[in-house]
């Protein structure tokens, strides 16, 4: 269960008939993009303008290539976990090729991995470390759409740009202890074993991690052409 505020999603329980139908249709359809998701990573995100608000983030990832991963972010790892956001992970090479204006939206992973805070639940250390050696050198871009940490029962408001931990002292001790106890891990012990890992070859880019600034997403209403202005197209 997640450490974030536990509230039920409002709504009536699923009817039995519906559940049966869902299973039947699921058997007919293919779920290739979902079936390709093969990796579960647990870490923490904080809001791009508020480090004090931190969220336990469960990443379910698939590789598009060796240099690009796409992940669904959940607030837990159980069957009722809420889909709260997405994250994309790219290699250093792909990150460096991004336009300068884009780089601040991305965060580095070196600290999270080397500190032991980012881990793969249920995977034994040696295998986990092999897999995370690569993550250590990547950059990520994360948006959340559901502010479960403030108790929202539904996904409300604008999207949120999220950031990742970059140094000691940022992570809330209560959140850390909660995850360690639930998963039977020790960040401190794992940190020692990950000392050999290396971050990006060229060092963490100065424009990553918001370029050190707070970043916020703002919604603005914009004028559109009149709805009747396009010649009628037939569906």
């Amino acid at each position: 269960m997640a450490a974030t505020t536990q509230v039920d999603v409002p709504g009536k329980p699923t009817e039995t008939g519906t559940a049966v139908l869902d299973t039947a249709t699921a058997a007919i359809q293919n779920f290739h993009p979902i079936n390709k998701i093969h990796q579960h990573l647990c870490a923490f995100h904080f809001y791009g303008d508020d480090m004090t608000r931190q969220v336990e983030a469960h990443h379910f990832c698939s590789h598009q290539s060796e240099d690009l991963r796409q992940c669904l972010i959940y607030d837990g790892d159980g069957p009722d976990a809420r889909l709260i956001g997405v994250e994309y992970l790219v290699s250093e090479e792909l990150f460096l090729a991004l336009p300068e204006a884009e780089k601040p939206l991305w965060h580095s992973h070196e600290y999270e991995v080397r500190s032991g805070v980012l881990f793969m639940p249920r995977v034994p250390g040696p295998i986990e470390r092999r897999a995370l050696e690569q993550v250590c050198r990547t950059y990520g871009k994360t948006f959340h759409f559901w502010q479960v940490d403030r108790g929202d029962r539904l996904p409300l408001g604008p999207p949120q740009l999220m950031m990742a931990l970059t140094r000691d002292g940022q992570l809330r001790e209560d959140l850390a202890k909660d995850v360690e106890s639930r998963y039977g891990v020790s960040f401190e012990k794992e940190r020692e074993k990950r000392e050999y890992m290396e971050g990006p070859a060229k060092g963490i880019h100065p424009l990553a991690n918001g370029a050190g600034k707070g970043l916020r997403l703002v919604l603005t209403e914009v004028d559109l052409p009149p709805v009747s202005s396009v010649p009628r197209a037939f569906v």
Partner: protein
Amino acid sequence: MADGCDMPPGKPMSAEKTVIDKGAEMLQSLKPLKHFKQQFCSFALFSHDPIRQIETHHFCSRLNHDFHQCAVYNSDSTSAQLIGVEYVISESLFKTLSPEERKLWHSHAHEVKTGLLACPRVPESLYRKEIAEFAKTYGKFWCTWQVDRGDRLPMGPPALMASPQGVNLGWVRPDLVKKRDDRYGISAAELREKRADIEEPDTIEGSNADYWVKCGKGFSVDVVETAMNLRAPFP
């Protein structure tokens, strides 16, 4: 294959990395993913620029009778790109939203009744009841990767999406629909005839859904620099 990048940026997965990932994968349970039971294909418009239209593939899991959370991709193949997240709620949940929040949500009746929304490979009769219920739901869809404009990686902030509507600016281009229909051997026109008797949702007082249709305004999302609320130095 839907519009967008054909080859993901980056190197193909090496054999070594695949083996490491496979080893880890076998040990993880990936529970939230087992609840993806519904899949459908439809179309969406960018709320800040409805002339831009995309084909979407939703993979949804139901948290309860009134709430679905969907991972949205640009195709249903194994190379599909994760382009966003949509939340789907019932009429009764929609009514609990504030007037401001409702502006960010769209209705589904038009795309259901016009056959734009389809469940390829599943006989219509099997999901007739669900599709009729879906026609009365509301969605909130954030697009995080604008593949239609050729982005090889997700760039910029998320975009708020709108649904096809029965106004000129809201009609989906026939060539997009034909491409989809031909790929699956289906016909939106035939689906429209079959769905003619599906009920429209009730008109909700002060709805504000499909805000752009009524008020001619879409929403753009912008990144703004601000002072980060800190609990430790950053970055």
